[in-house]
């Protein structure tokens, strides 16, 4: 039976206006491949959910990622050349790793992938970005290295590393009119990335409006809140109750946690399957999703300078509140007095016939 002949309510497979889409995933920035490894941990959705068509309404997705690819060497690189030639249409370009500055030295390269068959020269990562970004439907920076530079862009680094938007320009737009989409995190939180990718696939399929991003080009629904706003230890902060040593279950802001000023949902979402995270499980937030990471948060294990005023202020209010709550907590920890085994009813009910 043709799909349009099926009675209303029985068409479960919506047809995407785009039948196939490719994901060209470059890990050849200055990175550790930790973001690719991270996404293999995602379950909301998982990579196989997306690749095997387990989510309705999406185009068929073809992933070309060096950590997972079946193909090796030139068999693998052929997708890059196809994309460059405009024959892999449409495709999403995912970039992982910081973008080095190749124009600060006379020869050689900092980061490359594949070899040019004509010249025998390696093809720099930057060259690949120059070739592919103008043809991509969307460009996604995966992880803090690619979004803002990250660890390899630390003060004193020899490569002049930067983020993708620093390289392409913060106002850059794809052929489809999309800005660069930044999903930071060191590494990226697995589900945060896969969910962003899923959103873009919905958008391609015409099932979602333009992705909403903040000024740092992060998806708003993921990075609109601070670590502190989602942290289950924020209650200790409110009560002015601060840990003085690691391993305590109290607020660790005095031990180096930057949670109150960092945009990230990890304490709320957990690291995977709701498990793990950072301050919620005793790890100081070192600001790894932020454009200022790492330098503005170092040395990591000292109390953030800005936290002193607020934590001292809250201590006065918090201690008073804690004392009052302690009193109320004692009260609600006791049962009402009418629950007893004595041969009398003291609940307030007056029996008529017993």
């Amino acid at each position, binding site marked *: 039976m043709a799909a349009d002949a099926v009675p209303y309510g029985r068409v479960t497979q919506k047809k995407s206006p785009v039948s196939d889409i490719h994901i060209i995933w470059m890990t050849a920035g200055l990175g550790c491949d*930790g973001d690719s490894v991270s996404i293999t941990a995602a379950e909301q959705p998982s990579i196989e959910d997306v690749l095997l068509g387990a989510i309705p309404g999406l185009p068929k997705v073809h992933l070309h990622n060096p950590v997972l690819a079946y193909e*090796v060497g030139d068999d693998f690189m052929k997708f890059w050349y196809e994309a460059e030639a405009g024959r892999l249409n449409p495709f999403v370009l995912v970039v992982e790793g910081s973008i080095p500055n190749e124009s600060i030295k006379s020869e050689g390269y900092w980061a490359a992938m594949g070899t040019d068959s004509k010249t025998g020269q390696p093809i720099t990562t930057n060259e690949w970005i120059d070739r592919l970004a103008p043809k991509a439907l969307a460009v996604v920076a995966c992880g803090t290295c690619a979004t803002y530079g990250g660890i390899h862009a630390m003060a004193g680094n020899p490569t002049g590393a930067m983020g993708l938007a620093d390289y392409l320009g913060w106002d850059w737009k794809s052929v489809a009119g999309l800005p660069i989409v930044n999903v930071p995190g060191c590494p990226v939180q697995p589900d945060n990335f896969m969910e962003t990718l899923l959103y873009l696939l919905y958008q391609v399929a015409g099932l979602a409006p333009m992705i909403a991003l903040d000024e740092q080009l992060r998806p708003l629904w993921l990075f609109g809140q601070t670590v502190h706003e989602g942290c289950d230890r924020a209650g200790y902060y409110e009560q002015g109750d601060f840990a003085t040593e690691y391993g305590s279950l109290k607020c660790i802001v005095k031990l180096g946690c930057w949670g109150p000023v960092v945009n990230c949902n990890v304490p709320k979402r957990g690291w995977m399957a709701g498990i793990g995270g950072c301050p919620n*499980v*005793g*790890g100081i937030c070192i600001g790894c999703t932020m454009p200022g990471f790492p330098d503005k948060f170092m040395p990591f*294990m000292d109390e953030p300078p800005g936290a002193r005023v607020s934590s001292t202020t809250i201590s006065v209010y918090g201690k008073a509140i804690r004392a009052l709550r302690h009193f109320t907590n004692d009260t609600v920890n006791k049962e009402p007095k009418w629950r007893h085994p004595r041969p009398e009813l003291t609940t307030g009910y007056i029996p008529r016939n017993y």
Partner: protein
Amino acid sequence: MSTITTPLRDSSSKSGKLVDMNWDPITRIVGSLGIFTKIDFDNRRVAECYSTSSIFRGYSIFMKGKDPRDAHFITSRICGICGDNHATCATYAQNMAFGVRPPNIAEWIVNLGEAAEYMFDHNIFQDNLVGVDFCEQMVKETNPAVLAKAETKLAAGSNLHGYRTIADIMRALNPFTGAFYREALQMSRMTREMFCLMEGRHVHPSTLYPGGVGTVATVQLFTDYIVRLMKYVEFMKKVVPLHDDLFNFFYEALPGYEEVGKRRILLACWGSFNNPYECDYQYKNMTHWGRKMYVTPGIVVDGKLVTTDLVDINLNIRILLGSSYYDGWENSETFVKTDPLGNPVDKNHPWNQTTIPKPQKRNFKDKYTWVMSPRWLDKRTGDHLALDTGGGPIARLWATALAGLVDIGYIKATGNSVKMYLPKTMSLPEVEFEWKVPKWSNAIERDRARTYFQVYAACAGLYFAEQALAELHKGNTKTWSDFKVPQDAIGCGFHEAVRGVLSHHVVIRDGKIANYHPYPPTPWNANPRDIYGTPGPYEDAVQNTPIFEDNGPDKFKGIDIMRAVRSFDPCLPCGVHMYLGDGKTLETHHSPIFGLQP
């Protein structure tokens, strides 16, 4: 003195024409690796092999002058699959330098986290990355006759793993569509949940610190870990027979396959899992507490255990140049003249290394990579041994087996094997596995050891969980010890990253990092020919490899080379903080394009 691990073949005297076959990038590994070979198709052999990487980041440069407490946060970012091994090793070096000893339960928590890392990482690498080299699709494209044979070959362990024939196992390994591929991927998530329970986040942990951990030790923490661990235990009872069936079949179906990736037995293991009752992080006691680790440190040469002494291991590490784009540091500062025991420390030791990069053109006859060549000086012979890690497990099991020191109920090292005991699980009875010292250090045995070490890690996890719970039940829930950063100090940490030896050496001056050199497994495995002409292990192992693939040069996939290289579990981010590619390649043709050389 030089150590030629394998006699270099004279590529000009043989009759066969040499074809340049290159693979750049090698996929299904972590990081950027290119393999450049010359293949003699007439004689079905690899004549020459060079390994290269294409990314430079510069950790040892930008860590100078930073707060020493930041070292584990920074060095974790060296690697995206075993970053936690770096973070852990860094805290070991920090603990030594700061003179701090974590509470017992903190060590058990770290050991549980690291055990979960081995369980996860070996699992995903073996069955989602390496496994693809043995999957139906790959075997069909490289050795169709082998697949035909696999279709009729009944799997000996089918009652345990559920796959009737070897070809059924191969089909189950097909990427994404294979049932076992997907089961393994799912299992790699559960083991990462176990990891996150202990170390907060995978792959860059949040809860590790010098002096202990920030993890809150509760009953729930260990319950959540143990219930997951027992599911993994049940899984491994199926995986061991599955891989034994698959690997044994390759020896049977392709006689001579033991030569693939074979090299002289030169294995290094730096030990893993500190024993909190013995390890005080003092250098002067390191020989003692090193031998109390739950994976024994050791160097195995030609099947014999040369040493299990971490001080001996430490002092004889040498970083050699030769084919690398660096200037020597003989005129630079000597940071550490003697170790805390008064032993002289060599100028080529990591404590004294100064990195002086000198970019230049690549020339495979001279300098062709930015990776240096770590070697271990065998004082008996004066040889600078090009030790390899075999991807980790084979070296760990071999050293532990021969040393015969580990005996924790779930694991017993016998002197020539390692016995592992898995308790009853939901649907399977208790099982005993025994890893026996193999005849060869080759691709298949490196891969087989990986499966057995997954069992080892599970066994160790069971023991650590019991120990941690005993501490918890005694009320010992403090997980961190305070410390002060000294103005001047040195430290070293020894650990096993998933794919092999890992050391961190730190020098602190004026309260800041003055020198920091991590030596992870990949520099040991992926290094070039040193000043004595000794090739690095990948090069050496690939140069030994005969070609079994049916395809000629026009459709050549290089599957035997891929199996040889991937058996080392290449993880290039480990190496690339020291690598720098240059812009030139010489006389190269890429697969599947090829060229003939006179």
